[in-house]
């Protein structure tokens, strides 16, 4: 693909009008490859906006099936999809939004023994962490550091959310801020504590924004910052973060040089 078709000129006209995007930028997006891990509250809006924006290759990783309780916020899935694998309904929604997008699906959970292969599978440029548990969040962080891939971290709970962007060599990783995982059941997750449906929309869309900026090479990313959002007080705060020289994975003397599976999430109350 070397130039935009007439249909693409029309579809992406509002992008092309932007000085920071233009036809060239739109081509970058069409050639862009973004991997979204978790097609839930965060991954749903991220995937849908990236699809609409014309990101050419989108990978979806999820081993879950759609549950009725997901529909309050996981807008890529619909009522008719209950019981179907999330990656299938995710693919269907993306293809309905934009046929320019090629969807790659991975019907599995990320683990130490598959995550690096998944990241390499399509040579993804940017990764979005839309997972719901700490073992996955730490695994994604460590994998992205080891694979030298930029990624967006995020978490949401109740009326709060936060996000940060890691770019290799340009700032702290998640483990710089949180060196070790909290113990089982110590920190509640959405399943236990609840979450306002729109939180994923706000934070997941910010993650998509970071992915687009990264692909376009414009603006300032949330590298070296943790952005926190409190919906009850309508407050955004951008907390400056320093790289931690003692970080176990990206510090001066890293102790994590290969991936291991971390303990099962305490928050997994599926059978309770």
């Amino acid at each position: 693909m070397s130039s935009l078709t007439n249909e693409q000129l029309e579809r992406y006209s509002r992008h092309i009008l932007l000085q920071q995007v233009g036809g060239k930028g739109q081509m970058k997006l069409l050639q862009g490859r973004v991997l979204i891990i978790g097609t839930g509250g965060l991954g749903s809006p991220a995937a849908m906006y990236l699809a609409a924006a014309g990101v050419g290759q989108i990978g979806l990783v999820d081993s879950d099936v759609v549950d009725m309780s997901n529909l309050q916020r996981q807008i890529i899935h619909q009522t008719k999809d209950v019981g179907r694998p999330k990656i299938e309904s995710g693919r269907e929604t993306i293809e309905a939004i934009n046929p320019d997008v090629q969807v790659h699906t991975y019907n599995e959970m990320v683990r130490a023994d598959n995550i690096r292969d998944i990241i390499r599978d399509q040579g993804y440029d940017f990764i979005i962490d839309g997972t719901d548990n700490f073992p996955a969040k730490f695994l994604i962080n460590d994998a992205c550091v080891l694979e030298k891939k930029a990624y967006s971290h995020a978490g949401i709970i109740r009326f709060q959310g936060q996000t940060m962007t890691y770019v290799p060599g340009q700032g702290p990783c998640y483990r710089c801020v949180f060196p070790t995982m909290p113990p089982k059941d110590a920190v509640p997750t959405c399943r236990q504590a609840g979450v306002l449906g729109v939180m994923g929309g706000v934070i997941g869309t910010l993650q998509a924004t970071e992915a687009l900026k990264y692909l376009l090479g414009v603006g300032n990313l949330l590298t070296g910052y943790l952005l926190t959002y409190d919906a009850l007080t309508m407050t955004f705060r951008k907390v400056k973060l320093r790289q931690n020289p003692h970080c176990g994975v990206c510090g001066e003397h890293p102790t994590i040089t290969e991936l291991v599976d971390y303990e099962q999430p305490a928050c997994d109350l599926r059978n309770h």
Partner: protein
Amino acid sequence: MSVLKRVVLLDLTAKEFEFDQSVDFIQERQAEIMKLTVNGETLELEQPINLKALLVVAEANQPEYVTVQLNGEFVDHSGFEDTFVKDGDTVEFLYFMGGGAR
């Protein structure tokens, strides 16, 4: 915009003083008050305290799992008792936030 929060740590009340004395007392105390910025909000303290106490005073959620940045530097949990905050310090409490998919 910051919300002013007054934390009185000393268990003294004005009724123990004559009126004039209490005014002097308050003025004297005003001069000693330390102002910190904790998660973007101003917090006033009447005496120096360590990070362990600050986590309680500033009502940190689950202090055992919070990450603390003092003036931009991470402070390890093992240093919470020996690290005291002073006037003008900026403290950030950073919290684990799971959630996203399920």
